[in-house]
């Protein structure tokens, strides 16, 4: 019943993406990238040098890295190696960012960007999840749609911006449509793969214990598809943010993107522009990090989240 007991588990979909490192490499935070060389993997090396200490080490080192990079940028700009007209020193960007926070100016546009992001992804998920479950569990539907999904997936959603502007106008509807269209595919495809790739052994086991069809879907198929779906949502989150900001930058629907262009055209406000870019980056970082945290909590049983052992 434990779906995690599947050998070489899941994501057969992700054929192109092999990995030997630790499972959580994408970690937005201090997550391990690879098993500590020479120790944990060996049976008579020192065991568990103290996980808390390792985490602290990682955190401290990461902090040092951040501070170091900022200091280096400052130095490079001050020495004139990087023209100040292109990139103001961090000592000006951070105060500009702080001013945006203190004045509350930051939150309006961030909220608008997030609004489009949330609505778009919700719309996409509302359609893609049921459809994906249906396609994934009905063999004929899967075979009928596979080619089409393969074809539609690599289409760059931004190509639809002009058409969307024409049809919806330069407003929130257009932004939501664009995000919904762009995030629909990853959610749909991951759901289809997740459902379709449920380990046959698991299905057979469930059937041999006489579980009815509905129970098989809810208790077996859905849980084992969940990691795929979570991945789909995480991909969707990143694409959604890109599309939201693109729509804002290109078309001018309100949000962080517009604030960036406004700051740019205000002239002599490079520090403000970079402060907004910093805001966009932090937003992406936080969204990704929180999704991963949720995933880790919900999917703790999954092999890729279990301990450090492979």
């Amino acid at each position, binding site marked *: 019943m434990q779906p995690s007991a599947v050998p070489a588990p899941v994501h057969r979909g992700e054929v192109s993406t092999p990995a030997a490192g630790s499972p959580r490499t994408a970690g937005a935070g201090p997550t391990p990238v690879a098993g500590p060389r020479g120790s944990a993997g*060996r049976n008579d090396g020192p065991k568990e040098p103290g996980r808390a200490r390792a985490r602290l080490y990682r955190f401290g080192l990461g902090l040092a890295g951040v501070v170091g990079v900022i200091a280096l940028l400052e130095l490079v700009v001050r020495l004139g190696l990087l023209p100040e007209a292109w990139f103001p020193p961090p000592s000006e960007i951070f105060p500009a960012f702080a001013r945006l926070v203190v004045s509350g100016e930051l939150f309006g546009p961030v909220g608008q960007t997030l609004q489009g992001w949330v609505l778009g992804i919700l719309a996409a998920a509302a359609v893609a999840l049921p459809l994906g479950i249906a396609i994934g569990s009905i063999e004929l539907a899967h075979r009928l749609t596979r080619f089409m999904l393969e074809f539609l997936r690599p289409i760059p959603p931004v190509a639809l911006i002009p058409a969307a502007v024409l049809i919806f106008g330069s407003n929130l509807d257009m932004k939501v449509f664009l995000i919904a269209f762009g995030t629909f595919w990853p959610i749909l495809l991951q759901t289809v793969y997740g459902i379709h790739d449920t380990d046959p052994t698991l299905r057979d086991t469930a059937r041999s214990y006489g579980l009815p069809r509905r129970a098989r879907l809810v208790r077996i198929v859905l849980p084992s598809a969940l990691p795929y779906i979570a991945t789909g949502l995480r991909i969707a989150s990143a694409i959604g943010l890109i599309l939201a900001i693109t729509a804002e930058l290109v078309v001018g629907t309100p949000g962080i993107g517009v604030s960036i262009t406004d700051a740019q055209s205000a002239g002599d406000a490079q520090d403000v522009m970079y402060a907004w870019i910093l805001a966009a980056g932090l937003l992406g970082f936080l969204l990704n990090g929180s999704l991963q945290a949720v995933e880790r909590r919900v999917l703790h049983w999954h092999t890729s989240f279990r301990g450090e052992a492979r």
Partner: protein
Amino acid sequence: MLVVSDLSKTYAPGGEPAMAGLDFTVGEREFVCIVGSSGCGKTTMLRCLSGLIPPTEGSIELEGRAVQGPPEDMAYVFQDYSRSLLPWQTVAGNVSFPLKYKGLSKAEAAAATEEALAAVGLADRGRSYPWQLSGGMQQRVAIARALAYKPRILLMDEPFASVDAQTRAELEDLLLDIWRRFEITVLFVTHDIDEAVYLSQRVLVLHKPAHVFEAIDVDLPAERDQMDTKKLPRFGELRSRVLASLRAPDTTSA
């Protein structure tokens, strides 16, 4: 030929030692097996002997020279064949891979590869990829790679632990054959007592942290046979002795 004196290894400063006062010698063309319960520091010992990690204390001498990095006269056969073979190289490519860096010409390397593959019975599989072979065959490739390297001493880390029993017996006999034909020294680590007694001339019993608790001479006839040798009363006696030694409470603690 290999002289190990008072070898110790502690990973973290002030931590528990993985190896403490390891002392033994291996003679020219000898076949020595090392047995020890899991976690007794066998892997640490092998990594030290092969020059992959430095010991904390003590010295290793191979043919009179101190081992300070991987020595040229030594080849290491890893337990996990599937991880020590390169999946993007053919079988022949895997075997000849180290030879180029040993300074062999292309022709010499090809000849050595062919000879080594023939010795392990894989002469016709040079163009396959390792992952197309069975586990036993993959380990043969790893042995062929070691042979082609022309070492004086072969270091083997539980090389047959992950193959099935039948294959294992075949590989053991293959190894004995190679040992005689290529006139090399073998230091073979295993946790299988039968295997240790069957293969070797001497069994070193390791206790934790890795040190030699007892050395047992295997006075069986030189010619070994899976059926006959294992039927000898003496085989059973040696087996029990090794087992007893493994289980003995440690009095010699270093």
